[in-house]
């Protein structure tokens, strides 16, 4: 443990309280994993909210998920996965000191981030336009004056869970498509017993789904933004050739962060878009 301390002199990146690079590297890594654990537990709260409402009120989730666009969600999943791939490759490039490759791969990763946010923006905007929002802002005003299929076509087109009857008019779902509440009240309102915006089989409290949807994807989106800023930062430094076989810790750590962001999305996608 005495190797680099004193005898060989400190490499520039080695802080004075560490004995050697390896100790510093493994410390940083453990620190990063601990940080990732805190991120997982931060999201845990949202997953709990999701699980509680979904299991008690599947009707809300089944009804509401028809408003999400599986195609866009699927594409976004792939975009994020690809950017994870370029990131992982980037770490390798840093480890091997392939500077140009590293710069290229980091740029691609960053591009993936932009792509993801771009698509997310399109989705958000559609929700916004139709008043598919949280809490008392949930106000899908367009329900009342038309059959719905035309206007919502662009966002509900690809709902994969078409029942046997073919593509249904999703705003006038057969009551059988939306099951009753699993436990407790707030189940399907039978057609006719109108709620304020009740038509067909719209259940109570659909806004809860959109609240959870926006919180989950929003918090995830913020993480994407943070990850992109970090990638941008190491991209700048790697252009200057800061990383090589002896020192690539920042690339590795940012990579870990980016993969975590990806990891969370891997679960968000089926939970929000692929409800059956």
């Amino acid at each position, binding site marked *: 443990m005495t190797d680099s301390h004193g005898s060989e002199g400190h490499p520039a990146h080695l802080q004075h309280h560490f004995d050697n*690079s*390896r100790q510093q*590297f*493994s410390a940083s*890594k*453990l620190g990063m*994993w*601990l940080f*990732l*654990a805190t991120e*997982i*537990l931060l999201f*845990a*709260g949202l*997953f*709990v909210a999701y*699980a*509680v409402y979904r*299991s*008690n009120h599947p009707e809300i989730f089944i009804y509401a998920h028809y408003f999400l666009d*599986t195609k866009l969600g*699927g594409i976004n*999943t*792939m975009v994020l*996965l*690809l950017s*994870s*791939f370029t*990131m*992982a*490759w980037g*770490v*390798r490039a840093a*480890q*091997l000191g392939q500077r140009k490759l590293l710069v290229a791969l980091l740029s691609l990763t960053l591009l993936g981030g932009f792509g993801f946010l771009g698509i997310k923006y399109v989705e958000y905007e559609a929700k916004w336009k139709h008043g598919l929002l949280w809490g*008392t802002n949930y106000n899908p005003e367009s329900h009342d004056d038309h059959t719905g299929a035309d206007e919502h076509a662009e966002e509900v087109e690809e709902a*994969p*869970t078409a*029942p046997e009857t073919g593509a249904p008019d999703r705003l006038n779902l057969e009551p059988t498509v939306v099951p009753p509440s*699993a*436990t*407790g*009240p*707030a189940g399907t309102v039978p057609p006719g017993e109108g709620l*304020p915006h009740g038509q067909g089989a719209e259940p*109570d*409290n659909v806004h809860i789904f959109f609240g959870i949807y926006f919180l989950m994807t929003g918090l995830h989106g913020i993480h994407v933004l943070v990850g992109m800023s970090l990638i941008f930062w190491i991209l700048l430094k790697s252009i200057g050739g800061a990383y090589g076989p*002896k020192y690539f810790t920042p690339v*590795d750590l940012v*990579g870990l962060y980016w*993969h975590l962001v*990806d*990891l969370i999305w891997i*679960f968000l*996608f*089926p*939970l929000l878009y*692929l*409800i*059956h």
Partner: protein
Amino acid sequence: MATEHNHHDQVGHVVPVPLLGGVIAALMILTWLTVFVTKFDLGSLNIFIALGIAVIKGALVVLFFMHLRWDAPINGIVLISSLLLVFLFIGFALMDSAAYAPDQIPGYAPRINP
């Protein structure tokens, strides 16, 4: 520390490109698969399949992209314990709120349905 070091100052494991490529290919296929499966109505099985696929995808990312396969065991322990806590939290919250749900008052939501 289970880190491999090929030469003196080399720290961490270098993952070969073909392995990375294989992982991303698998991830893509699994993503397509999970969307595809949703087209079939398998009752309550659907959610388990969807989550099962997500777990496999997550494991791939964690083990290969995040190097955990070659990393110090403590880092894996950290990850696993955080996941255990998530399950603990979900488990109790679910068990409890499902148990008292029948006491809830139908239609009670004065701020939305005046």
